[in-house]
């Protein structure tokens, strides 16, 4: 175990994967000479050279498509989209091509591709630079979407993603880069499609991912101390495929669920999880599933407005209150 930042965990993993497999290369805007807009790739150009660390012009559709084409011929590109907001420019290549090629051509040609990109608001970057667009991709069969919340998960999931034969959207979050956490030693991987119970509890389940999972864990610990509430926190980690089993089992145990996400509420991860829970755990629900999500506005610049638009710990606590948990429950075996 070593403590490191989320950023360091990503950096180290990229470096290891570049060392491990000659077919792995990095490609994206400003990842080489500029060392990455968020410095995830700092030093890698120097170490691996321009063949393995490829700076691109500003043309998301072009270089994402290029990466897909390279993957079709067996390379394992790791694309960096500077922020997820710019991924809109590459939608055609990701959705119409990366996600389709294996299926549409009858299983002849896999596309082993990773697209790393940070999302999230809270940095006063305003409407076009603060979005959470991962559900666009989680919606599409043929793509995988992971969204780790801790340095350890970032490392384990990035390794898995690079070694996966499918296009994987690897969602980071600007506010997570400087967070720290214990990271296991060694070449460990975390399976895609496996949620993690970050904290066990029996009164309520909070389901979340990425940065909000960290907030949820904090709130859960606080409420346990202050109110003796036993809250289970599940970090789904993968949005596609989604680990129904872990989520459903948790809610079967606690009978109450809050889904906590930074993204807009409509048609989001919360909607998907709520639908899944009512389908698979209906008879275990003791209260309506709550969604705590971002305000449905383009994120404003001004600090008070931005803070009002982003989901917060306070809103999460309010949702816990709405569930009206009155007593500590006895768990029947």
């Amino acid at each position, binding site marked *: 175990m070593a403590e490191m930042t989320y950023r360091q965990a990503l950096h180290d993993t990229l470096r290891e994967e570049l060392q491990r497999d000659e077919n792995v290369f990095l490609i994206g805007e400003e990842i080489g000479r500029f060392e990455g807009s968020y410095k995830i790739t700092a030093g890698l150009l120097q170490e691996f050279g321009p063949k393995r660390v490829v700076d691109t012009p500003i043309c998301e559709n072009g270089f994402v498509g290029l990466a897909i084409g390279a993957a079709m011929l067996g390379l394992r590109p790791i694309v960096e989209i500077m922020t997820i907001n710019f991924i809109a420019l590459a939608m055609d290549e990701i959705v119409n091509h990366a996600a389709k090629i294996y299926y549409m051509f009858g299983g002849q040609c896999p596309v082993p591709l990773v697209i790393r990109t940070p999302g999230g608001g809270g940095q006063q970057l305003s409407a076009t630079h603060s979005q959470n667009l991962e559900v666009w991709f989680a919606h599409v069969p043929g793509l995988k979407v992971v969204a780790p919340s801790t340095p350890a998960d970032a490392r384990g999931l990035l390794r898995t993603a690079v070694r996966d034969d499918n296009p994987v959207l690897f969602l980071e979050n600007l506010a997570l880069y400087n967070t720290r956490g214990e990271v296991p030693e060694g070449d460990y991987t975390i399976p895609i499609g496996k949620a993690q119970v970050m904290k066990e509890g029996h009164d309520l389940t909070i389901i979340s991912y990425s940065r909000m999972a960290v907030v949820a864990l904090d709130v859960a610990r606080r409420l346990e101390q202050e109110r003796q509430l036993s809250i289970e926190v599940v970090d789904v980690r993968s949005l596609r495929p989604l680990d129904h089993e872990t989520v459903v089992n948790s809610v079967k145990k606690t*009978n109450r669920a809050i889904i906590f996400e930074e993204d807009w509420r409509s048609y989001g991860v919360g909607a998907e999880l709520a639908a899944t829970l009512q389908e698979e755990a209906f008879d275990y*629900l*003791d*209260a309506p599933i709550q969604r705590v999500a971002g305000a449905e506005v383009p994120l404003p610049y001004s600090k008070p407005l931005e803070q009002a638009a982003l989901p917060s710990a306070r809103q999460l606590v309010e949702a816990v209150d709405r569930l*009206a948990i*009155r007593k500590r429950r006895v768990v029947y075996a």
Partner: protein
Amino acid sequence: MPEVTMPRLSDTMQEGTIARWLKKPGDRVERGDVLAEIETDKATMELQAYESGVLEKILIQEGESAPIGQVIALIGSGAAVADQEEARAMRPAPQTTTASSATGGGGSGLGMSQEEAPRQRATAPVEVPPSTAPVGQENGDRLIKASPLARRLAEEHNIDLRQIRGSGPGGRIVRDDIEAFLESRRTAAVTAPAQAGVGATPAPPAAAPAAAAEVGAAPAEELVPLSRMQTTIARRLTESKQTIPHFYVSTEIDMTEALALRRQLNESVGEGGVKVSINDLIIKACALALEKFPEVNSSYRDGQFVRHQAINVGIAVDIPHGLVVPVIRDANLKGVRTIAREARALIEKAHAGKLTPADLSGGTFSISNMGMLDVSEFIAVINPPEAAIMAVASVRRTFVPIDDQPVLRDMMHVTVSADHRILYGATVARFLQEVKRLLQNPFSLLG
């Protein structure tokens, strides 16, 4: 805007349930129009409009309950009906059957008794029409708000959700409520049997208290929810047994002569005439005895005796899943044939679910007769606010010593349960002697 409030329709009524609305929002309402049918703990009553206008808004939906005095609808000029219309669209269409024959008789008191006259079961069983059946429940037939988990737990534990008041948001029944209910049932199960045993409730099987059925019989239990009427019975009899100091006086009455008289009366009855039953003779005998012993025809209320002028004898009648005690008024003044005719009519109305509060109110003494059920003896629980009730067992041909010789006579065991706050053993014994004297000299009943 004139408000329509939940009316008081019986003395024991605490809340009423809207059985159905006969007007919908937007309908023109004339004073006197029947607005709704309201289910009380005993009967289904019509609610008439006291104002003319347009029914603006219904505040209490069909199947929902409200305490007396709560506003249940608004009558106005007709401006604000739109949302209500939308809300109603979600509900099942109102039934189109005509209003029940029950009439809104105002707020006269309803007597309540747990006993019945089992012999009346000999009459053809009459199905109680749903609209007038005493189906009142805690939550009625309206959509019960309960979490899916609560529903599943309720099903697993055979709990009727209508018995449970939800404590979740918006009154939703949640797991806590089910668990609390299960817990209370566990506790209740320990104390319940006493009531079942002594209460002498000759009730149909379904009326067996749920708690009793549940004692110690975990997997095989079946829970049947109490109807509103059964809930009322349970509440009032518990109250009776717990607050009234009962004492009991029994005797054997030789009914040989009474049976002979009855035979003679019935042989002389013409086509379409009403036959006199043993119970009719007992009613008359009791009524006459009550004239002589007015203490027995009394009530204890707030530390005082209440002497009733009228002698109104209630007769317990079993109906499906419950019992009712319609009252024969001024029984002391009525002839045996009149009593017989009225009793027959009341029993039929009871089976048809058409008893009105007037039929059920004002009793001053009750008779519970289980003679048809081969009962050697039993005792009954007093039907408040009355002071006494007589339990009548089966008539049995028994050898009795007459002049030291065994003679076959038709003997009947009776027990009077009396309220010791206002009655004493000797009084009741003397009352009982008078009843016995009258029945053993039945021609005195015809006077």
